[in-house]
Each structure stands twice: as C-alpha cells, then as structure tokens.
C-alpha cells in the first residue's frame, strides 16, 4: 500500500524528463508477480481432477508407470551395490520419479536433454542402458558419453553449469531453423547460481526452444529451500526473465506430463522458453556420502512418504482398470529382474582401459601431450598394468 501511494505522489509531479527510448521511471508500476497456481491433476490419494484429466493412451500410461517403477528398482539396486562397496558415490532419485520420468515423456529423439545428476529415470527413458549408467557412477570414463543417437549432454557435477550449454543448444536449433527443443533440469540449489539466471535471460532474449525444469526438492544437501531463496516460489525466476512459468506438483505424473507437453509444444512452435517449477521432495540422501539425520527431521520425511508418486499413479491406473494388484506385482518383479540383469551385465564388462586417458581431449593429440602419454605408458609398464 505504502508503495502505491509513493507511486501516486511521484506521478503527480509536474516536471517529467523522458528519455527517447526508456520509459520514465515515473510511469512504471510495481511488477505484479501474481499468484502462481500449482498444477495438480492427481492428488496424493490418487484421485483425478476430471476437468484436467489428460487423454494419454493406456499404453503410454503403462509405459510411463513402468519407467517409474524401473527407476526405483534401479535406484535400490544401485544403493545395494554401493553399500557392498561395488559402486561409487551416487545421488539417489527415490521419491522424485514422477518429476524425473514425467519431464521427458514429450521429448523425441531429435530433442535434447541436459540433465542434472539426479536423473536416472529420465536417462533410461532417453535410451541410456542401466549398465551404462552403472559404468558411469562406478568411475569408468566410457560411462560418460551419451549412447549413440541419444542427443543428451552428460549430467553436470558443478551445480548449474549445464544450464547455459542447454540454452546454447536451443539457440543452435534456432540458428539451424530446426523445430526441436531442449529440456534442462536443475534443483532449488542450482537456482541460486548466477549462471542459471544468465541462462534464463539468454533463453528468453533469444526465444530459444528450452524447457527449464526447476526441481524444487526442498534440500540442497543440508540447505533447505527457504535458506536458498527469500522468495520460495522459484517459478517467479521464470516470470522475472519474461517467460511463461508454472508450478507443478512434481509428485503428480499426470501434471508433469501435461505441463511439459504444453511447454514442448510452445518451444516447437517458436514461442520460446517455458519455466516449470516442480515441487517434489528428496526422500533419500543427497548422495551416498551424505547423512540427512544431521540436518533434517524424520517427521518431514514421513509427511512426504504419503505423497509417494508411484503409489498415487498406481491407484489412478487401478481405478482406471488398466492395472491390478497382480499386474503391479508382476511389473515390480520384472523391473527388479531387469535391474539385476543390468548389474550382472555391468559386472561382466571389461576393466577400465588406463591407456586411453590422453586420447580424447583434442582431435589430434599435441606433441607435448603425446610425450606425456608415452611417459605415462612407461609408468604403467613398470607397474605391470599394461596387458
């Protein structure tokens, strides 16, 4: 109120200086960020909002459901392997399956995906095999490159550093007059990075076909969202940069599918970027090297258990008559088996090749680097590890 009165007083002053291309400060009104609705189609009890219910085919719904179950099976298998000392440090995805899987359901092979490191379900859907992902997290260089014909960036480790290149890919699509799009995800922590703000700005200025998924899972390691940002509605970051922005219940698979579908349509139609804040929760550890008991209350976790994305989707699909207790059990078993097969295939893969670490930095290895490589190979030979 005080602010509005102040404005009024200023506009009544008699003398105004107006620059030719800048609107007078006296004519600007405070930006109204408005109330940003949270899109929810499937509530935590699995009840659907019939006015918003999308008409995805049963096959599509079952495929997405299986991807979520598989993501969880993969996650659990990875955790077991890690605790057995047979897997490196990794970031569990448990509880975020709707958000992670849902976001890529509208992408095609020609679209690009630039993930953060907590994106298993999405990567599997994009065509990364589970043994490939295991190879990656177990410390093998050959796990990093995306599979052939998969247009993804490798996930980023430096928080938020993959968002600008994703926007650049979108600018490249505009440059080459392609009607594809790029989807990039990052967390509430990354939203504090300057480079992420720059990425939003560039995307909006160049109308790049980019979908930003800000996965607000409540925690950046031990820092809660409320300490990350004074404005907890992270979707306003999109609004501030001049793009359509929405908040979505990130544990509601239907809402995630619908929101990203609309955003990808906009991008393909040349309407530029969209910002989606997906509200979800990191049920498990930041990474396997983390202990959340140090900084957060179990009560909070319990509340989110009741909002499980897989459970509510199961209820919906059961009510819809395309799933029952028996088929659920079969699906879970087959996903667990698939994760075990991936584990076995991963264990059967050859050991890391220590000789190739110099070979990919440049198109042609420079002379000095070649010398260093020879010195290194000699070292390997002395240690007896070459063949």
């Amino acid at each position, binding site marked *: 109120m005080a602010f509005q009165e102040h404005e009024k007083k200023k506009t009544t002053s008699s003398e105004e200086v107006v620059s030719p291309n800048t609107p007078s400060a006296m004519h600007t009104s405070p930006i109204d960020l408005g109330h940003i609705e949270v899109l929810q189609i499937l509530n935590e009890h699995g009840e659907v909002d019939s006015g918003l219910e999308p008409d995805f085919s049963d096959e599509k719904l079952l495929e997405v459901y299986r991807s979520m179950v598989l993501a969880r099976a993969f996650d659990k298998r990875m955790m077991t392997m890690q605790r057995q000392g047979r897997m490196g440090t990794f970031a569990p995805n448990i509880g975020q399956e709707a958000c992670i899987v849902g976001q890529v359901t509208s992408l095609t092979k020609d679209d690009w995906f630039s993930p953060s490191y907590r994106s298993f379900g999405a990567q599997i859907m994009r065509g990364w095999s589970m043994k490939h992902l295991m190879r990656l997290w177990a410390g093998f*260089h*050959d796990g*990093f490159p995306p599979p052939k014909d998969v247009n993804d960036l490798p996930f980023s480790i430096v928080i938020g550093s993959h968002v*600008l*290149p994703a926007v650049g890919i979108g600018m*490249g699509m505009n440059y080459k007059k392609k009607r594809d799009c*790029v989807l990039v995800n990052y967390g509430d922590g990354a939203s504090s990075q300057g480079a992420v703000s720059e990425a939003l700005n*560039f995307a909006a200025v160049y109308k790049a076909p980019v979908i930003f998924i800000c996965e607000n899972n409540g925690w950046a390691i031990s820092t809660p969202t409320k300490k990350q940002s004074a404005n907890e509605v992270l979707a306003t970051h999109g609004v501030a940069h001049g793009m359509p922005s929405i908040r979505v219940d990130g544990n509601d698979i239907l809402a995630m599918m619908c929101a990203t579908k609309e955003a990808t349509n906009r991008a393909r139609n040349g309407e530029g970027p969209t910002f989606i804040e997906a509200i979800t929760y990191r049920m498990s550890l930041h990474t396997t090297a983390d202990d959340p008991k140090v900084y957060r209350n179990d009560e909070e976790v319990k509340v989110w258990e009741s909002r499980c994305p897989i459970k509510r989707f199961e209820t919906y699909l059961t009510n819809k008559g395309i799933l029952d207790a028996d088929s659920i059990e079969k699906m879970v078993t087959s996903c667990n088996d698939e994760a075990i097969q991936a584990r076995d295939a991963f264990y059967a893969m050859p050991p890391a090749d220590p000789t190739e670490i110099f070979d990919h*930095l440049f198109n042609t290895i420079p*002379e000095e680097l070649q010398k260093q490589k020879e010195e290194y190979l000699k070292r390997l030979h002395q240690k007896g590890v070459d063949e």
Partner: protein
Amino acid sequence: MSKLTMVEAINLALSEEMERDENVCMLGEDIGVNGGVFRATKDLQKKYGEERVMDTPLAECGIVGTAIGMAVYGVRPVVEIQFSGFTMQAFDQIEQNMARLRNRTRGKYNIPIVLRTPFGGGIRAVEHHSESREAYWAHTPGLKVVIPSGPRNARALLAAAIREDDPIIFYEPKAVYRAFREDVPDKPEIMEIGKAEVVRTGKDITLISYGAMMRPCKEAVNDLADDHGIDVELIDLLTISPMDTETLAASVQKTGRCIIVHEGQRTCGVAAEIIARLNEVVFEFLEAPIKRITGFDIPFPYFQVEEHFLPESEEIILAIKDTIDWQ
C-alpha cells in the same frame, strides 16, 4: 596486397570465414551495429544479419556457456569478450565445459569455439582492461592459446582457429590493433596453429616473445645488430599452447643463450614453462642461464605508471648484453 591494421585484418578474417561457412556465427557485447568497441566486427552484422552476428546480453559467462551449446549442436561460434579482464566472469564455463566437454564425452561432441579477446596493456585503459592472463588458459587442459603479433599473422591465424574443431583462446594484443599497417595478401591465408616463427635468424642468442612485446623485441634486435654487433635470433611464439618446443629448442641449441619476454605476470608464466622445457631438452648446450623479462607479480598498474611495468627495448638490450657476457 592491401596495407591493413590488425583490427582491419581481423575484420577481414571474420568476414571471409563467415562467407566461407554458414555455420560460423559470432556472439558478443556490442558487436552488431556498433561493430565492437574496437570495431573488429565493423559492418559484419550489416553483411551477415542479426542471426549470425549476435549482440548478446551483458553476461560473459552466458556468452561462453551458450556458445558451448551452439558448438555441441554443430554451429561454429566466434565469441568476442570485450576485454580479456572480463573473461574471468566466464572462467566457470571455459574450465568446466569449453575445455573438457570433448574429453568428458570421449570425443562425441567437439567444441569448435574461438574466444577472441583483446589483452595486454599500453593503451591507457581503465582498470581491469590491461590483463595478460594467457598462462591461465595454457594451464587449462583442453584449450589452445593463440596470440598473433601483427596484421598478417592475425588474419591467417584467426582463419585457422575458426576452422579448428578444438576450442581456442585467441588473445589479440590491443596495443597492436592500430599501431601499424602491414601488407596482407588479397587471397585468404592460413597459418598452422602450434608453430612458432623464426622472425630473424641469428647466431649469438635466442630472443623469444609474442603479442605486443614483439615490437620492443624487434627494436632491441635492430639496435643490438647496429650498435653492438650482436646477432639475435628472434622467435615469435604465436601459439602459447600447444607450444612449439622443437623450434625453440633448435634455436637455443644453436645459440646457447636465451631470453624470454612477456608482459604477463612472472610466476608460473609462459617464460617459466619455456625455461623448464629448454632445461629438459637442451641443457647441455646452454652457455648462460636463461633470463626472463616479464610483468611483475602484481595486478596490472593503473595507466599513469603502466609504461614502467611493461618491458621496454632498453631493458631487453641490457639483459641480452648481460647474458652474452655471462661467465
């Protein structure tokens, strides 16, 4: 042949490469209508359009980061960072992605970016406008660092850089931008990246430098020949990384003496690297310790005193005479 300044020669190379390959585009602050603050991109937007010569928001990290994505997608961006001091804003993207995305993806994605930026002192510029931090980039695995010294090699090296599939930091010595004109051939010319050039052959001592420091070196070499009968072999490094050790070593093997001149700071600088390499390969041919004349390990001083910070020909002459007389 036309007599061009370095800025004009750079403009020519950019125009020729954009003409040759429609995937070559440019991103930078004020490079469009304004033609860049040094006019290196003058009239290019008029010629090639806003989609190919892109005025960007004022965010260096954003410029480099988005250029990386464009490069992944098969575009070949030439980025202009207005002054090399501002490149620090983009350090994150240069280090995390530009230099290593090829390595991370085991060669699946190339990053053919040329990051052009004016560097060095001597033009009475404000703070943060005179840095020479080439050692940072040479220290970063995955980058090539190229520094021309005159109009002709600037044009030929820039064209070569734009055609390379690896990321390149292209440092332009802004003190040379309009310092002199040189014959530049009418036909496009390419110089190989990674090769130093023996600018003058000599038998008594090897003098190695690059960029704007080649001018005081040339003055010193001429004075020493005229007044003292000292025959200096002068080498223009041209590519800082990967360094042409072979050419440097062959020269020092012949002369037995060496001096290195650069305006960048001394500690862990380019001269330090050259000395280490020469010690490895031609130690037994050395007649005297290798000397370096460099910027001091302080931030570049404000312009009222910058002339005292930058190496000058008198100093180079003294150092050469000292090294010749060393026993």
